[in-house]
């Protein structure tokens, strides 16, 4: 089987290339001719100009999500945002209880933080999902107690693309006065988010999933005097004391520009990407023993998680050559463990290991999808034919 050389990137859920318009904008904040000054140095004009650029970016982030500018805090990325939401709230509300609620299918940055808090004496309830990967609001309701300090459920799952009903879950939390945190890394710029309407108190974002640079993200904190977070990083008092450290102007401007483009073009992008994704699945679904994970649930436009049950996913990826797809999330595949998300959905470890996560994005072309479909079909058919017992399941 020839291993083709042309790289085709279909791992947009792991990260996206930076949009050229974002790169252009960022470049103006680095060199001696640019706005490189420290945005906290407001005693001089360059510093004030950098500050203005930071605030403009803050406005762009707020505009995409229906928030007020002062509710947006810049962080180093979604992992820090998730840590800040969880640890910041747990620390500030320790006297009110010690119980936290989340789902079994969260990103590692939430689950690892939850486990660390358990080791420190907090109690965490991990709500299961159903076979389609949906966290049922009723299961969340059962988990909430008067001792619950925080409930945290992701908007779009990073492996399956399944969309959670955050309006319903947030409503349950709000009725009980429990802060609700949402990891919106995979949904920002792909789904409409209006935090002026949604019952959400904390929301995490990342730039590099939305065609912005790595190393920058944001945390939305609803403006409410009762909602106080203890900072994780202390120092110069930046970000109104919640997140110290010199503001990375070029990164922040990159985030703001990426979010502005998402606000202006996200809907059209989503429609085109969904069409390509569905065309790819239409081809792959004709294969024997191939199953779409989360196929019965609403899903984000670019995600396609499919189990190729007659073969091993790692071998399938090997024979796809330079087609860049994932077996699970980038984080879980680095650990070499079957996906916790797929196993929570009821897949066996073997089925989870047979799964590819294919995620499309802004720069995916119809030609690339055609080539990807051909390569996957060819590799799968060949590997399935040489699997033990294949004579019983497959012709020749």
């Amino acid at each position, binding site marked *: 089987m020839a291993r083709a050389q042309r790289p085709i990137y279909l791992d947009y859920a792991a990260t996206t290339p930076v949009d050229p318009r974002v790169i252009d904008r960022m470049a103006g904040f680095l060199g001696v001719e640019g706005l490189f000054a420290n945005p906290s140095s407001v005693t001089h004009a360059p510093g004030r100009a950098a500050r203005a650029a930071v605030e403009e970016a803050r406005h762009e982030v707020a505009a995409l999500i229906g928030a007020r500018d002062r509710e947006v805090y810049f962080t180093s990325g979604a992992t820090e945002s998730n840590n800040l939401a969880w640890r910041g709230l747990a620390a500030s509300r320790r006297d009110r209880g010690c119980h936290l609620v989340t789902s079994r299918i969260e990103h590692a940055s939430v689950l690892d933080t939850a486990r660390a808090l358990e080791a420190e004496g907090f109690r965490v309830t991990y709500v299961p999902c159903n076979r389609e990967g949906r966290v049922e609001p009723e299961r969340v309701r059962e988990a909430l107690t008067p001792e619950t300090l925080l409930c945290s459920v992701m908007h779009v799952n990073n492996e399956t693309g399944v969309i959670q009903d955050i309006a319903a879950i947030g409503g349950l939390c709000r009725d009980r006065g429990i802060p609700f945190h949402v990891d919106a890394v995979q949904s920002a710029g792909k789904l409409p988010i209006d935090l002026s309407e949604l019952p959400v108190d904390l929301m995490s974002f990342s730039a590099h999933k939305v065609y912005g640079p790595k190393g920058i993200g944001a945390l939305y904190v609803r403006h409410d005097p009762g909602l106080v977070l203890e900072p994780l990083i202390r120092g110069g008092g930046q970000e109104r004391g919640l997140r110290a450290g010199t503001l990375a102007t070029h990164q922040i401007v990159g985030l703001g520009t990426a979010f502005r483009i998402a606000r202006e073009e996200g809907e059209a992008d989503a429609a085109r990407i969904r069409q390509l994704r569905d065309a790819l699945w239409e081809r792959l679904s004709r294969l024997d023993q191939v199953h779409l994970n989360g196929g019965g649930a609403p899903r984000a436009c670019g995600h396609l998680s499919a189990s190729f049950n007659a073969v091993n996913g790692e071998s399938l990826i090997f*024979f796809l050559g330079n087609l860049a797809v994932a077996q699970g999330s980038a984080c879980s595949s680095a650990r070499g463990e079957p996906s916790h998300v797929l196993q929570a959905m009821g897949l066996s470890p073997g089925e989870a290991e047979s799964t590819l996560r294919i995620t499309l994005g802004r720069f995916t072309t119809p030609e690339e999808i055609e080539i990807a479909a051909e390569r996957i079909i060819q590799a799968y058919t060949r590997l399935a034919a*040489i699997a033990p017992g294949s004579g019983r399941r497959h012709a020749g």
Partner: protein
Amino acid sequence: MSAAGLPVILETSGSAQFEFWASNLERAGRLAPDTPGLVEGRAGHAGAGGEVEFTLSIRSDRIEAVRYRFRGSPWIGAACAFYARLLEGQPASVRWPPAAELAGQLGYPRVRYDEVLIVEDALMAALAARREVCDE
């Protein structure tokens, strides 16, 4: 998880030797049931690390043909391809490099060594089956 309970870091690329053997499916498949001197052996389980099946044609104490089928990682596939090529044309009593030695030769990461054992087990099962046939 590793024995120490630490996450195992996957090595997703190997040596040029590994790449060569993993992509070489020349002997992948199964010998026809009516092949003279046919023996077969299996090891492993698809849901637990991998599954391998060898079919060998052995006549006059010589391995005339080897085919294999597998469901598992490319590391398993590479070891199958290597052993199949190595054994074809050899006396049935040939001594092949043990799994750990082969893994070292092909530049496998340490965490992948165990997977070659499945391949070796399947080969040994096939040759044991031949001895049973001869003993009857």
